[in-house]
């Protein structure tokens, strides 16, 4: 490279650049007021300065000073506000403890966690945080636009899964199954529905929509309450780190939304390669593991796709896109692994199936259609039709208006349907003590920050059983047991929530009841399943509540260890067809 050659161009460029920069400076960088520096270079000779110019300069400088004092004063005020005023510790509306000041360790420092933790602490605990957030929801966010649809006051958050009827993709052929599809058998009593309480009967069919037969056991009530421990709530607390920020809304949700994005890509491939021999007889069941890579299937997991209509938040179901068949195949694996245990599958619809006005129906896919596909694919698994049971009670508050969960009343009707199919006694709602917690604003507000939800709280209504139960909570390895209660005590919180009553998911709970029918039930669930438990305390002798996402044991071994007679898979449609379903498969191979 000859120097001359090189320097020629750049110098030319430099000139060009300089003139460009000058032009840019002329347009943009010219300070808003005259400066002393500029006056030195630009101003006319001092002799030419007249009184007017001096005055102008004085006025300009005064404005600049006022400007500096105004903005600088605001920054100074902000500093005092952030450091001297009380730091908030709890976010009632998000049901979480706010970030705590980090404790120093060399490893956390080297990772940058300590320093970022300090910044997170100050950002997260701003004094009067709740009021400021309310102001944002009430006054600022509505400035973005208008609600859609006149009186419906529709707001859309996230992605809708819009389709026109003819665009619904055709379902693939149903994998071959050996037993008759459960759905085809619409009549005929079975062992399960005729009050059979045997522990070993292999139930191959299920009933659809037969009249409910419930029995109730009256037990003395023992109110068991426990302070909501910090440890439990901390699970909800999410750090606002830079890298995670774009997913913030998802992060604040329950792990339902979070986990699927991580696990499906890793676990399925691992397990299928590790245990090929165990799947040779179930080729159809292993194929759908691929759906973790299918973007359409992944869409179904995202629960922050929310439509707010008539002051109700509705999650928009994006469809299984084959995930529903995979789910069925995974559940079928449990029948293979545990042929003497009754396997029940009760996927749960979300509120979009019942509360989405007709004119917005094409923003979602049909949960019912996916549940029907599942039912057709079960092999030795009993389908429990919670959908139909719930659809008969849509006039009652079976779903929360501000939360992505169902309401305990919805869980009651689903539990009733299950008890009927399983042939176990069932306590009538009248035997429960009704508890009302007013001012409930659920998770959907956290996702959307919509004032439509914030300013229209609802009552959280739950039902306390009078059955005597002993509840032991274990960690996800079924260790470290300690006594707890069926319901947590939300008294320490101004605003209540689903989690504050039913607890968190990252544990295993054993509920020992006074029912003496020899039936031991394992519920593999997501957070929807938590609300079922109180309604089954009169129906099973033992209930083990296990979250599919936080289960660190081999599911089959665990079932044998606790002497399970029944296993119920009960989770919302998102978990069943989305990424969470891979845990069902993986839990058999741990």
């Amino acid at each position, binding site marked *: 490279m000859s120097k001359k050659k090189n320097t020629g161009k*750049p110098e030319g460029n430099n000139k060009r650049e300089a003139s460009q920069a000058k032009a840019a400076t002329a347009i943009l960088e010219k300070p808003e007021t005259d400066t002393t520096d500029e006056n030195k270079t630009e101003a006319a000779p001092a002799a030419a300065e007249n009184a007017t110019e001096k005055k102008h300069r004085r006025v300009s400088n005064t404005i600049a000073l006022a400007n500096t004092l105004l903005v600088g004063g605001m920054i100074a005020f902000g500093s005092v506000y952030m450091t001297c005023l009380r730091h908030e510790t709890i976010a009632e509306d998000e049901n979480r403890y706010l970030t705590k000041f980090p404790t120093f360790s060399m490893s956390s420092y080297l990772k940058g966690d300590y320093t970022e933790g300090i910044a997170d602490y100050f950002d997260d605990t701003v004094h009067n945080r709740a009021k400021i957030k309310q102001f944002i929801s009430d006054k600022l966010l509505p400035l973005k636009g208008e609600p859609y649809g006149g009186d419906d006051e529709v707001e859309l958050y996230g992605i809708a899964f819009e389709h026109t009827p003819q665009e619904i993709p055709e379902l693939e052929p149903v994998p071959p199954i050996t037993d008759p599809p459960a759905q085809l058998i619409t009549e005929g009593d079975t062992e399960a529905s005729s009050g059979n309480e045997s522990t070993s009967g292999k139930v191959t069919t299920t009933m659809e929509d037969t009249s409910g037969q419930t029995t109730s056991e009256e037990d003395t009530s023992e109110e068991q309450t426990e302070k909501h421990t910090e440890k439990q709530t901390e699970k909800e607390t999410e750090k606002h780190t830079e890298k995670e920020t774009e997913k913030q809304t998802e992060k604040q949700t329950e792990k339902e939304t979070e986990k699927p994005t991580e696990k499906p890509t890793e676990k399925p491939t691992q397990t299928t390669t590790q245990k090929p021999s165990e799947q040779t007889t179930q080729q159809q069941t292993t194929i759908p593991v691929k759906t973790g890579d299918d973007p359409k299937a992944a869409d179904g997991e995202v629960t922050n796709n929310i439509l707010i209509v008539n002051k109700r938040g509705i999650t928009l179901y994006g469809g299984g896109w084959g995930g529903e068949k995979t789910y069925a195949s995974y559940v079928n694996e449990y029948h293979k692994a545990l042929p003497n245990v009754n396997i029940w599958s009760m996927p749960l619809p979300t509120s979009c199936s019942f509360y989405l006005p007709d004119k917005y129906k094409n923003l979602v896919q049909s949960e019912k259609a996916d549940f029907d596909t599942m039912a057709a694919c079960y092999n030795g698994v009993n389908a429990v039709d919670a959908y139909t049971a719930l659809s008969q009670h849509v006039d009652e508050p079976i779903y929360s208006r501000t939360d992505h969960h169902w309401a305990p009343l919805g869980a009651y009707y689903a539990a009733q349907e299950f008890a009927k199919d399983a042939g176990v006694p069932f306590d009538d709602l009248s035997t429960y003590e009704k508890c009302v917690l007013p001012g409930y604003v659920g998770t959907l507000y956290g996702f959307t920050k919509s004032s439509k939800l914030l300013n229209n709280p609802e009552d959280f209504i739950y039902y306390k059983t009078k059955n005597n139960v002993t509840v032991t909570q274990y960690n996800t390895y079924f260790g470290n047991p300690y006594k707890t209660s069926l319901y947590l005590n939300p008294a320490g919180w101004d605003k209540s929530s689903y989690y504050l009553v039913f607890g968190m998911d990252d544990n295993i709970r054993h509920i020992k009841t006074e029912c003496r029918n020899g039936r031991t039930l394992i519920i593999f669930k997501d957070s929807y399943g938590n609300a079922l438990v109180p309604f089954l305390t009169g129906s099973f002798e033992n209930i083990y509540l296990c979250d599919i996402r936080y289960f660190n044991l081999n599911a089959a071994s665990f079932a044998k260890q606790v002497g399970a007679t029944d296993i119920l898979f009960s989770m919302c449609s998102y978990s069943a067809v989305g990424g969470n379903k891979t845990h069902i498969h993986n839990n058999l191979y741990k």
Partner: protein
Amino acid sequence: MIFSRLFFIYLFLPACLLTYAAARGTKHKNTVLIIFSLIFYAWGEPAFVLLMLLSAFVNYACGLLIEKYRGGKGDSAATAFAVVFDILMLGVFKYSGFVVENINALFSCSIPVPDIRLPIGISFYTFQTLSYIIDCHWEKVDTQKSFKNYLLYLALFPQLVAGPIVRYSTIEKEIENRSVSVSDVAYGFNRIALGLGKKVLLANQLSIIVDNTLGGIENATVVGAWYGAIAYAMQIYFDFSGYSDIAIGLGRLFGFHFDENFRHPFVCKDITEFWQRWHISLSTFFRDYLLYVPIFGKRRKYGGLFLVWLCTGIWHGASWNFVLWGLYYGLFVFIEMLIGKKRMKKIPLVIRHIYSKAVIIVGFGIFYFEKLSNLGIFFRKIVGYGSTQLIGLQDRISLTNNMYLLITAVICTFPLIEGFKKLSEKNFAAKSAVNSAAALCSAALLLLSSIMLVDATTNPFLYFRF
């Protein structure tokens, strides 16, 4: 650390400003700035701060060698060493994973993909230090004798992690001799408030629309795909130019005058002009240091152009879509070059605007989709290929829900402030009125942005990842 968080605005910045103001003399002030810059960088990257220091030291030392052996072999050797070192550093930390992945894919081998995290701002400070070395070699700047001063140039926190790519020549004199007037402070504060407003009030809100449209491209309609891409183009603009505003504003608080990095790119009439207005510090870097590298012989005009756009693309990220993105713009600049300036001007203005906006919007679509399969879906959607609907209910709801935000964003892409400045030049009363209004607007923007930040997800500026 990022600028758009309360901790920075209300704790880090005041602490820095107070210490800076308390320090007497430029030397002490420089020491304060270096310390705060290192704290700023180490806040999120305690380990990689050493890498940055290493880079600074190597380049500083090479600068001295260039000076010592001026015109001789040692000069070229030191230049070559520094350039290779810088490019290698960037290559290892930014592109090694990408390169290995592609080698694996191409030759069906399975070389382990190195899991190297991208040190924040490496693309920016490496380019700064490269420009210094080359300018030293070309004798365009005097070699910096003091390591402390060189470190100040490289590590200055306003521009350290996301630009603009400040040339050494720009602040060479100001490193050792600068002053700050009250007008500078006012200007700096106002510019920071403006940048913060762009980022927090516009870019962050637009990003929600983008996530909901381009994020679910399989479900998008024709209008939805265009809507998403338009929102994304504006998001990136407000995000990045907002960062540059804050950087320029912060620089001014300390007496530095950085060059503009954006000049309202969306008012351009063609793609060549777009790149004269978009990320100016990067395009001028490539123009000055790459375009005339004589490796293409007689065809260097076109070869250089190809190289510049390839590098522009790949600089933005180790992914094929960025390569495609760069070459895509290169293609249009090339076409415009073939047509010629005079003939371009003969094309009706409306058509030129429609053409340039369409190219830019589709370009940002390419920029968004790192996964090429999704990019394919995006292309099909924008032309309505297949059974794509023209417009859907979700688009109508979203457009209604965000109508004022979108209108405001579009208006803000025009050079409004320049308009007011022109107005202020008419007479002194107008100037005073405009300046007073600017102060009030800045205060309002700062207040609103701060309120929004209380509940904001700490959205890092997008250009952090480059």
